[in-house]
């Protein structure tokens, strides 16, 4: 499903910083994996590389057998749009769009027919139990609700892979748990592969597999 072969990422700035070094990783279909590590250990970088938001300095990343390095920018985008859903720490909802529009955005970008988009968006909002807030703007929602909208958006095409970067990081612990439960629940129902970057060991504990990163290297890989 997700294969990383000797992946390194070096940032060229005033100081060269190695974010990832020779990472080897294989994540089979349907697994729920948490990536933990102190800040700066490279966990977000890893997620960005897998999500095709960034390109590795060396090494090979394959998503369902497709080598990301060989894809153009638009090719990468196609992989993202068809196979990957993103959940961000700061939700990254578009403030000017209401819930429905936010969820519908990826579908519009795929040029789905209008009717189908509306049905799907409503379906997704129901799925995250926000069917009653369709017309609301993000700023009118609580943090948990916003994250649920973001999750609905990430699920828009029911992608095989769901990437979450600190999904609970900006929420109080109760809401965080709710969100986590929602993700688990969705995983159970939809069978997606889920990668969660977190520094919350409680979150990690609920995942079947935990990958521990330190200084850009995999320090531990435990299956529960």
């Amino acid at each position, binding site marked *: 499903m997700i294969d990383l072969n000797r992946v390194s990422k070096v940032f060229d700035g005033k100081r060269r910083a190695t974010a990832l070094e020779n990472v080897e990783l294989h994540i089979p279909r349907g697994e729920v994996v948490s990536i933990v590590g102190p800040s700066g250990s490279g966990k977000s970088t890893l997620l960005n590389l897998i999500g095709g938001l960034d390109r590795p300095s060396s090494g090979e990343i394959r998503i369902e057998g497709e080598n990301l390095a060989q894809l153009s920018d638009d090719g990468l*985008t196609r992989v*993202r749009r068809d196979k990957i859903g993103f959940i961000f720490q700061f939700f*990254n909802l*578009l403030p*000017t769009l209401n819930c429905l529009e936010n969820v519908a955005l990826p579908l519009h*970008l795929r040029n789905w027919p209008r009717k189908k988009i509306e049905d799907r968006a409503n379906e997704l909002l129901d799925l995250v139990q926000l069917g009653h807030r369709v017309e609301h703007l993000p700023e009118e929602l609580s943090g948990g609700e916003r994250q649920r909208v973001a999750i609905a958006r990430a699920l828009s095409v029911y992608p095989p892979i769901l990437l979450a970067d600190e999904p609970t990081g900006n929420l109080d612990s109760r809401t965080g748990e709710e969100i986590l439960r929602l993700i688990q629940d969705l995983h159970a129902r939809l069978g997606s592969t889920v990668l969660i970057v977190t520094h919350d060991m409680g979150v990690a504990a609920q995942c079947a597999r935990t990958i521990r990163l330190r200084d850009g290297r995999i320090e531990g890989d435990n299956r529960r």
Partner: protein
Amino acid sequence: MMLLRLLSWPYLKKHVLRWALTIAGIVLGVAVFVAMHVANRSVHAAFEKTVQKIAGSAQLQVSAGEFGFPEEVLEQVQNVPEVGVAVPVIESTVETGIRTQGSILILGIDMTGDRSLRDYELDSADESIIDDPLVFLAQPDSLLITREFAERNGLALNAKIPLFTVQGEKQFTVRGIMSSTGMAQAFGGNLAIMDIYALQLVLGRGRRFDRIEIKAKDGVRLDECKAAVQRAVGPGFEIDPPSSRGQHFDALMQSYTTATGVSSLFAMVVGMFIIYNSFSIAVTQRRSEIGILRALGATRSQVQRLFLLESVVAGFLGSMLGVLAGMGMAVGVSSYMGDLTEQVVGVAQRLDELAVDPWLIVGALAIGIGTSVVAAWIPARSAARVDPIQALQKGKYQVLSAGENRRRRAGAAVLVVISGVCLFFNNWKPAFYTGYILMILAGLLIAPAVSLLLAKALRPALKKFLPAEGTLAADSLIQSPRRTSATVSALMLSLAMVVGFGGFTNSIYVSMDEWMSTALNPDFFVAHSANLTNRSITFPAEVGQTIESVEGVDQVQLVRDARVIYGGTPIMVVSVETEKLLSKVKRVPLAGNSKEMHALTAAGKGAIISDGFSSMRHVTLGDMLDIPTPSGLLKLPVAGVIRDYSDLQGAVFIDRSVYLKYWNDTTVNVVRVYLRKDADAAEVKRRITDSLSGKYRLLVMTNSEVRAYVLKLMDQWFSMTYNQIAVAILVAVLGIVNTLTVSITDRRRELGVMQAVGGLRNQIRRTVWLEAIGIGIIGLVLGMGLGAVNLYYSLGMIQRDLGGLDLDYIYPVGFMSLMIPTILSAAFIAAVGPAESAVRGSLVEALEYE
């Protein structure tokens, strides 16, 4: 100053492109201003220089308009005891056969007369300037040219120069070369001197002079001399210092300079909005920085001063560059204007250098900096008002508060009401212009509110069109009115100017067309050259008889027109054969009764005036005209007012019999020829040319050629203003680039999210393009609206102060429908760069962007 270096410089470095765009706004505004003024000034200076160099030390000139006067007047003037020296002059530009030289100014003077007025012989001459004065006089083909002209064309003594005279192309002989000082500098060195009597023949003038130049007798005051000469020659003559020709020239150019002045002002205002825009954006973007400053103890006025200082620096840089660019542009503009004055006004002058008034440069710098500071004032004030606590909290940018919007709307309403009131006092000049200015201001005040409304209205449409990209583009417009409204305002102003101008030209073309089809209806026009504004070459009336006897010709009408000075400024006097004209041209007078008007004029008991003359000189039906003629003042009542575009200064039509009597001149400069119904035009044209060949070199122009010529003149007259409009639009488009550059920075995260959730690069581009097009659409709607108002006032201004033309209000629908694709494609082009930079750059950073 310290703050400026510490804070502004890093920001500037980070946003080099934006500052470049801002400065470009000032550069363009100032450049246009400088170019127009330098060009105006240079053309004027070139004319004045020519006048002054030619006049030499003459103190007064005796003239009677362009018609000239009989030779006998010279003796009358010479016999005035107060006159020291009096010499006759004829002056004309003549087409040379040398391809690259165009026309040459020929000055006819009495070579045996006094030379104390003009120095064309060197004091230190060790060779004679004129090879042999006696031969020079004996041979009518003798020319004295300037050394510069000789060198430019490789001409030596006894070389031949082809000139187009009334008898056709004839060879003239260089019999002398002037040194390149003194008079030779006139007309850019393209000056030749001929014996005045020989020149009379060349120009077909008969025994007439154009003017007499006078030096008062030693010890006689100039006003005494002037009064004495005036008594001797009568009131039909102008006796003025040579410099008055410069004033007349200015009067001829006045409508043009005003028009260019107004549009360069518009360009400036448009530039101002770009600056305003930039500063507003800078203030919003630097809110946290301002917050820190305030938290560290900076006072409000310090913050305000910081921004104003920045604007001074930007204004200074922009103005400096603008002055340089303007000087560069002025070279082209001046030579264009030089041609224009020759073509349209019929006053030739030749530019050899730019006249730069240091005060103009100072003024341009002041205007540039002033504009910049004024534009930055409001942003600087709002920077000072930034609340440090709020500013330090991350979050959305401040949007225009509802209260502010309400105040603006209220202000606009008040202004509209006041200008409405002004409309009732339209006849009073200050009220008219106050109304005009207030209306434009009102437009500017409500522009943000209206553009918000329009953006909201656009959202569903755009959403329909491209749901994801369209919605986001519209939202971007709605979300930050500060970002868009200034650009939209700039665009609105530019377009309002386009509407005003387009409407005016449209109306004038419509009216011109109507005029041409009624008044300019002969089948042929016979004249010396295709340049009908050149009236310095005339021919005898017998040409008319010759043409009339040609088979196929039905009727021939003789026309002689020229400028005379009426009330201090030039007007056009056109002498026509009224009865013949009436039989062919049916004109409906604006005032007066057609039958009576023609009868009175034909009988020499009245004159017909053009509407322009009527409104500029405040003369109407029944008023007395005092037209100066060599035989004294010609007093004629206005028998009728007609719509006529013969001349921008206004025209007075008199009967040819009156002309013959008062001017004592039988020459003609245009012959209107009507053919028999069954005649073959091409064949008759050939026969006319044949009948004249050998004696006169005259051009037979068909009706459509003359119409095309008139339209070409119009186009020429307007093209400079078109260019200025193009500049204004360019400035506005720069504003769009500016706005979008900021917009994509502001929306970096949003665009990143779009890409993260699957937006392809083209989809990202499209949303940027759509935003630009949205600005374009809003600008178009607002501009067309304000344009309707501007057009109303422009037409008023034209009737009131420029040319006195009473034009119908016709909204330039066709012209504006051309503007829609133009502006939208310009907006699109403006968006290309920003859109590209939106899809480049790191996604990861974009998503983390705060």
